[in-house]
């Protein structure tokens, strides 16, 4: 066991636990109301939102998985950088529209919006179920990230993980979205410090970047299948479609929607799209840690151990502890927001819509809190009871699934042209086709080769399924309009999407 690392880790962990409970008093609101518990009362300004979204989107799993992919396969793993470059210009276009219409109509989830826009319980249910299904394995993967650092410190067994998750469950229950918002400050500051130090100290010890890239290239050439530090022409399309497809999907994940809707103003959302790339820069440096691990001569079959082992080898024990705490706390922030987002969806779009129609906001908050506990228990079971590989497979599927909600949500923010049934069928076919591709690949990769005549096109399965989904939605809308099928009433007004409303400070 690495005593110094463990002590630093535990101290930081106690500190954020206290923060998590204190958070319930921060910008005090009535926490028995869903808007307060599940969206922090929509009162977070530009600054808090930046930490919250950064803490939310760049998860512990990202911190472990991206360098692990670079360590194992080379340059393809760097797609995370163009992905997080294009995601913000894209979100700059449509997320302010979602924020405005949600604010005006009191929508808490993307599914609420779909219900209001298309008056289709079926389509809204489809969106809610997709969101919940995609989120659950993602929460489980946060635990996997945490498990990797706990194991590196020598804290074996399941109990440290169970304790961490019970603490997480309790402060999420009491403080709602305020807890991860407050803890995100600590998480992000720790991450930035660790990455900055790693980017300076490790290359110095390893003989500079030039040497790191040469050593990584040499090591990757011996891997099976062979890797390289620059993508080959065969990987151009997979690289670009992975980046683009993931970017389109990211802000439709329930935790991203929750993070965005909790902003206090439309301007705060827009500003964040210009400031969030600071995290992308950090992510790029972090990805290179995979190469640093190769250059440092770290050998492990489990690629997710590469970064923890690198920290232990190159840092003094206490600072490795800071690094591990950053990753573990980096697991708690998104896990909390994801469970809140899944609870919001369940409560608003399944429980209230199909079971207790007259549920009051207090009743909603109570159900959401309980559901958030169940979600975390489920995630814990996933990690302890089921091989990790299943969670990773499901997360890969989750990305493909979320992409299938793009036509209904993103295009719905711009036009009411689409027919609700057409969107539903497009979604269903996209889900089945996308899942089928992943299964056929035996979950080994999200790159799927489609044969069109003589052409063999290898690209991101989620995007391929999404294109089929979009084409179906367009064609079926044309057909349904031609035969005169009516679409439901639109509860929103075109001006709702541009409104600048500010939450009153009470």
């Amino acid at each position, binding site marked *: 066991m690495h005593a110094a690392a463990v002590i630093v880790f535990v101290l930081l962990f106690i500190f954020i636990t206290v923060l998590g409970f204190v958070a319930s008093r921060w910008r005090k609101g009535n926490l028995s109301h869903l808007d307060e518990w599940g969206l922090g009362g929509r009162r977070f300004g530009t600054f808090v939102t930046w930490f919250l979204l950064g803490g939310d989107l760049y998860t512990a799993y990202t911190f472990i998985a991206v360098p692990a992919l670079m360590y194992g396969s080379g340059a393809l793993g760097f797609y995370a950088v163009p992905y997080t*470059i*294009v995601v913000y*210009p894209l979100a700059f276009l449509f997320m302010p529209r979602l924020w405005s219409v949600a604010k005006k109509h009191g929508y808490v989830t993307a599914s609420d919006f779909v219900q209001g826009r298309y008056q289709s319980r079926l389509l809204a249910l489809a969106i809610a179920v997709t969101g919940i299904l995609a989120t659950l394995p993602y929460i489980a993967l946060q635990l996997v990230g945490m498990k990797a650092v706990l194991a590196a410190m020598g804290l074996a067994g399941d109990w440290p993980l169970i304790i961490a998750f019970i603490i997480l469950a309790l402060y999420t229950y009491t403080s709602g979205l305020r807890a991860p918002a407050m803890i995100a400050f600590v998480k992000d500051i720790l991450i930035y410090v660790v990455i900055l130090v790693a980017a300076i100290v490790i290359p110095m010890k390893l003989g500079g970047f030039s040497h790191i890239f040469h050593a990584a290239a040499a090591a990757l050439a011996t891997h099976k299948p062979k890797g390289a530090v620059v*993508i080959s022409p065969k990987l151009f399309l997979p690289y670009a479609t992975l980046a683009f497809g993931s970017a389109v999907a990211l802000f439709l994940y329930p935790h991203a929607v929750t993070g965005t809707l909790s902003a206090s103003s439309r301007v705060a959302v827009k500003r964040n799209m210009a400031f969030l*790339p600071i995290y992308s820069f950090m992510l790029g440096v972090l990805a290179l840690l995979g190469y640093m691990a190769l250059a440092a001569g770290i050998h492990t079959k489990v690629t997710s151990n590469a970064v923890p082992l690198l920290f232990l080898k190159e840092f003094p024990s206490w600072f490795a502890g800071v690094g591990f705490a950053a990753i573990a706390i980096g697991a708690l922030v998104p896990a909390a927001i994801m469970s809140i987002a899944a609870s919001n969806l369940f409560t608003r779009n399944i429980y209230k819509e199909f079971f207790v129609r007259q549920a009051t906001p207090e009743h909603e908050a109570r159900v959401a809190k309980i559901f958030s506990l169940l979600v975390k228990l489920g995630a814990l079971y996933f990690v302890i009871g089921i091989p990790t590989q299943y969670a990773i497979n499901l997360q890969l599927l989750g990305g493909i699934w979320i992409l299938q909600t793009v036509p209904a949500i993103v295009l719905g923010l711009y036009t009411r042209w689409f027919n609700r049934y057409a969107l539903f069928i497009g979604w269903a076919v996209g889900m089945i086709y996308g899942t089928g591709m992943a299964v056929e690949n035996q979950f080994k990769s999200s790159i799927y080769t489609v044969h069109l005549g003589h052409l063999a096109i290898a690209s991101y399965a989620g995007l391929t399924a999404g294109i089929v989904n979009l084409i179906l939605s367009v064609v079926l809308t044309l057909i349904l309009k031609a035969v005169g099928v009516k679409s439901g009433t639109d509860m929103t007004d075109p001006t709702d999407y*541009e409104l600048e409303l500010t939450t009153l400070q009470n």
Partner: protein
Amino acid sequence: MNAQQEPKRKRGRVWLWLLLIPFIGTLYPPFYASYHPVWFGVPFFYAYQFLWVIISALITGVVYFLTKD
């Protein structure tokens, strides 16, 4: 919203097309899938994409100011 505001809004919209630039710059790997030139020990493939993180953020920032009402 009054009549005077309307054309101003529409004019601001044009700037949104600038947001297309990062997509062209980063989603066409033939532009940058090369080891050389090496900048400060970092192969072009990486240096180029790091540079685009900054360019893209600047573009988004500029568009924010240009479309502000």
